């Protein structure tokens, strides 16, 4: 579960300050599928980075986890944030972000290295994750030998292999054609249903967003609408 209280994120650069997120307060319960929408520069990716423990807010508070194991993300050191990312959060990127020199199996195994699972056990789990996304016959293929949809399936397997509490997806269908887009969204639906995982997905695509339980609309860094589907 996420609890954001009055969260603001400001970036300081050479050209001055840019407030990407302003006073956002919201709660995301465990197991919910949330779609985040809004125009470019509205703060969607910044929200995802804060939820994913990739950035700390400039002000405000972010609590993550259930009551007994909740952590305050904005107060954790970088090492602890990395541990949270490693064990509890799975990322899926628009550009897939696979390591081009590693096979599908090795890419998935890369998700297990920071939690200390290696060797045969890591290979077994990675194989299972690839079977779950329908790529059991592509384990030794390099990303360049896979289609866009297959690459995104590998990325999904990499996010799932550590059995995370939350999956954060940034435009996961943005680089796919219509056929693959539907294919991947169906996969997300199945995973969300079967794994009981919290799914936060940034998307421009309203047809994708309509599958979610809740839609957050961000504009100019502010939470403009919080819509239950």
């Amino acid at each position, binding site marked *: 579960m996420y609890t954001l209280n009055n969260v603001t994120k400001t970036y300081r650069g050479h050209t001055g300050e840019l407030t990407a997120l302003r006073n956002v307060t919201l709660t995301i319960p465990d197991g919910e599928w949330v779609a985040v929408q809004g125009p470019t520069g509205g703060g969607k990716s910044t929200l995802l980075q804060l939820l*994913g423990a990739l950035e700390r807010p400039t002000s405000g508070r972010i609590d993550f986890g259930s009551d007994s194991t909740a952590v305050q993300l904005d107060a954790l050191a970088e*090492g602890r944030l990395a*541990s949270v990312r490693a064990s509890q959060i799975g990322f899926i*990127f628009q550009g897939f*972000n696979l390591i081009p020199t*590693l096979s599908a199996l090795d890419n998935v195994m890369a998700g297990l290295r920071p939690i200390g699972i290696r060797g045969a056990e890591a290979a077994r789990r990675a194989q299972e994750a690839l079977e779950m996304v329908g790529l059991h016959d592509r384990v030794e293929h390099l990303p360049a030998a896979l289609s866009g949809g297959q690459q995104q399936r590998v990325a999904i397997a990499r996010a799932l292999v550590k059995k995370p509490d939350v999956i954060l997806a940034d435009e996961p269908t943005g680089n796919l054609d219509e056929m693959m887009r539907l294919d991947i969204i169906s996969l997300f639906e199945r995973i969300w249903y079967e794994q009981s995982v919290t799914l936060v997905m940034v998307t421009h695509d309203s047809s994708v967003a309509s599958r979610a339980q809740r839609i957050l609309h961000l504009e100019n860094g502010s939470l403009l609408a919080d819509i239950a589907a």
Partner: protein
Amino acid sequence: MWLGYVFRELGQRRRQAAAVVAGIGVAVAVVVVISGVSQGLKSAQTDALASLYGVGTDVTVTKATPPGSGAPQFTFGKADGSSGSGSKQLTQSKLTVARGLATSDVSQVARVAAIPAVSSTAAVLMLDNYDFSGIIPDITGHVPSGDGAAADGPTGADGSGGSSFGVDTFSVAGVDVAHQTDAGLLAGASATAGRLFTAADIGQQVALVDAAYATENQLAVGGPVNIGGVDIPVVGLVSTPQGGVSTGANAYLPLDVAQTLSGLPGQITHVYVKAVSASDVAAVSAALRSQLPDAVVATQADLAGSITGTLTAANDLSSTLGQWLTLIALAAASIFAALFTVIGVSRRTREFGTLKALGWKNRHVSSQVVGETLVEGVLGALTGLALGGIAIVLINAFAPSFSASLSGTGVTAQIPLTVPLPIEAVGLAIALAVAAAVIAALAGTMRVARLRPSEALRSAE
């Protein structure tokens, strides 16, 4: 997976990896060659010492050189020479004490031998043989003209008056036959043809010739060598144990014969001294200095310092320039590798950002960079050893030789440079390559530590 990732990444970035490997390799090769040449020069210096002083000599005793001693003068009377075709042929040989040396009475040997801890002694009379030959215009009976004008004598194209002179010089050592193998120039030497001196040669006009000098001057066993104007039969050709290195003199005579031919009866120039043990050398040399205040007493260490010539110059250059070149090579390789590593890390922002987003800590990502640079370092070391080995083979193929002389004696040896591939150079090469790789890895990991995982998401926007 980690090793596979390391090798696949290096394979993917072949050009960059090859540039780093080549940079480290060249630096390692430079160090290997410098190290080899330095060892070769040190070895050559040892050979030079053995050649100029003989194997096993611990101390030499000579006499201070009197000021003004120099090359001999050749004088000819009117009746000297053979005339014909308007010119006169003049030849003369002289056997004199070697330039820069003074003689002592042979009784000095007994005084030296009486000093405690002296194991053996060998006396030598070091001589220079000069063969003068020349042609001058025969002006005998020429009468100036009556008008007072200068006579039209021959002038010669070079203004030498039509004369032509030449002096050939070689060194001759009179050796104490009874102790020739104990210490001194022939200690450790062997006969490559014929034989060494025997006791029966004492008082006999027989000569040994340095093998290299014999080859150069077409001298052979059984043939004569002209020393002091006397043709003396050659009974052996001698060489140093090092092989290819010339001995300390061009020709050798029994001591008494050398003294007679040079007109220096009972005189010697050197006493070569061997101590009972290495630990006695200091005490022996101190006793010699005390008991022979007029003598010049030199130990092996002193002798090494008195060697001059291109060998010493090369060794000095190798010592000073070599250290600087090693440091420069290390610095250049490190900077080169670090630069390429940092550029590589910067180009892989998305990759490393993704790994950090997956929960990889700095140490995980850094271990990847360190692994890649270490592999580059090891490949650089192997490349450098191969390049250095090839360079050493080429140097040895051309086999440059250096001259080594003993200050003031005119005794010169030609020492061929043989460059080894020193075992410690392998360790040094690996250490250098690893040092360059570690410095590069440090630069890379510093860049990794500054990398924010959110870069991975940004690059996707």
